[in-house]
């Protein structure tokens, strides 16, 4: 019967809310009580270094292209040894939505997200992080990876002596 069903459903609804009133709230009382984030929690972004201590970021602009809110900007430049690096690198955390697309896009594992979620500030300008604020001393996740060991442009090892490379070819050789 329709009316019976309706009344029963309404009564059930009232019962559920009433019962919930006497259950323990799930709220975490934030400043006193802090949640332990998961390992892959997406919060404050850092720039990591490769295992040899060099900056991993090659300023390829992929993170800034992937960023849906356009909060990453940088300028690439060439160092004397041919290494491509960022002369300046800026993340505007007031705009960042911590979606993690930048870390997904990063081909060198330079840009990574940490679990440090407590980065609220009163002054928005203090949330505009520059390269010196972002760069950390360690390799972060994937500690053994160094992009330049694999890209054959010869920065950390001489040309043709990378991990998957043969020595430079000699065009004048007649040998097969």
């Amino acid at each position, binding site marked *: 019967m329709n009316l019976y069903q309706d009344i029963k459903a309404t009564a059930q609804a*009232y019962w559920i809310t*009433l019962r919930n009133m006497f*259950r323990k709230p*799930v*709220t975490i009382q934030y400043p006193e009580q802090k949640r332990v984030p998961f390992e892959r929690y997406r919060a404050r972004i850092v720039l990591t270094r490769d295992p040899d201590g060099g900056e991993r970021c090659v300023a390829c602009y992929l993170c800034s292209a992937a960023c849906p809110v356009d909060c990453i900007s940088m300028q690439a430049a060439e160092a004397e040894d041919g290494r491509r690096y960022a002369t300046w690198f800026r993340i505007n955390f007031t705009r960042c939505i911590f979606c993690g697309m930048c870390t997904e896009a990063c081909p060198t594992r330079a840009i990574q997200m940490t679990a440090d979620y407590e980065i609220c500030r009163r002054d928005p300008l203090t949330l505009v992080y520059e390269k010196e604020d972002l760069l950390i001393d360690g390799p972060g996740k994937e500690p053994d990876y160094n992009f330049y060991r694999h890209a054959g442009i010869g920065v950390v090892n001489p040309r043709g002596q990378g991990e998957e490379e043969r020595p430079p070819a000699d065009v004048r050789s007649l040998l097969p």
Partner: protein
Amino acid sequence: MPEWLVTTILILVKLGFVFFLLLTGAAYMVLAERKLLGRMQLRYGPNRVGPFGLLQPLADAVKLVTKEDFIPSQADKFLFFIAPGIAAVTALLTFAVVPFGPPIRLFGREVPLVICDLNIGVLYFLGLSSLAVYGVTLGGWASNSKYALLGSIRALSQLISYELSMGLAIVPVVLMARSFSLTNIVNAQAGLPFAILNPPAFLIFLVSVLAESKRIPFDLPEAENEIVAGFHTEYSGMRFGLFFVGEYINVIILSSMVTVLFLGGWHGPLLPGIVWFFLKVGFISFLFIWTRGTLPRLRYDQLMHFGWKILVPLALVNVIVTGAILLLLNPAKG
């Protein structure tokens, strides 16, 4: 001390008591609602200001008073000014006729615990609740905003529709109590409350009162996900605060009316009358909050359909049935 002076002083004292009670009551209703809703949703609700968040109403008041008082440039300034006042004052005035306890003896005289025992108290209540519509309607109209106007139109039609069923639900009470005076109605329930004697009238009245208070599930006039905030869209600061306080005073008044008309007012065993009265009012207020935590909002056509096609006919039938039964039971007095 002349007789008239004592009467005046007594009335003023009662007025002060009621004012204080109503305003603090309304303020703490807000807190209670937020806490209870929080618990129903497995949260704590406000618990930062004072112990258990008890000073939250004070903080809210300070916030509302210090906020910018914004008036839309195209608004009708005069009406915009007085509309929140109308809403709050009509709500407050209704309490004048509510008897909140049995008469007590004070300084050797019988003092009725009602500010003014009008012999047409029921009509006074109906009249004021009709006037309350003006606060909402004028506020929405004077704001000169689409959403506010839509909200006030909704409020107008909703309040008028449900006033009808509310009025019709009171008719059996008046028939049974044979009086328009609220004190007499309470006294008529010394034995059994009318809620038990005439449950259909009680339920119809309860639903109509929910609708009159413009609260969930009947909060269409301020449905925030449809029309921003309805009639008070353009109000800010203490002007919004008056609408807000008015709504919660209204909840208390309407709970009192339910108590007086159907739950036997101050009558109850063991405890003093005044305590019974406030317990009953508290329970009905809790019912309001509980409903808000439970039911979703009606669709507009459902609201009108329910009012006009179910409640009003039901109330009419109830009036006739009650009248007929009373006539059968008591043919001599008829």
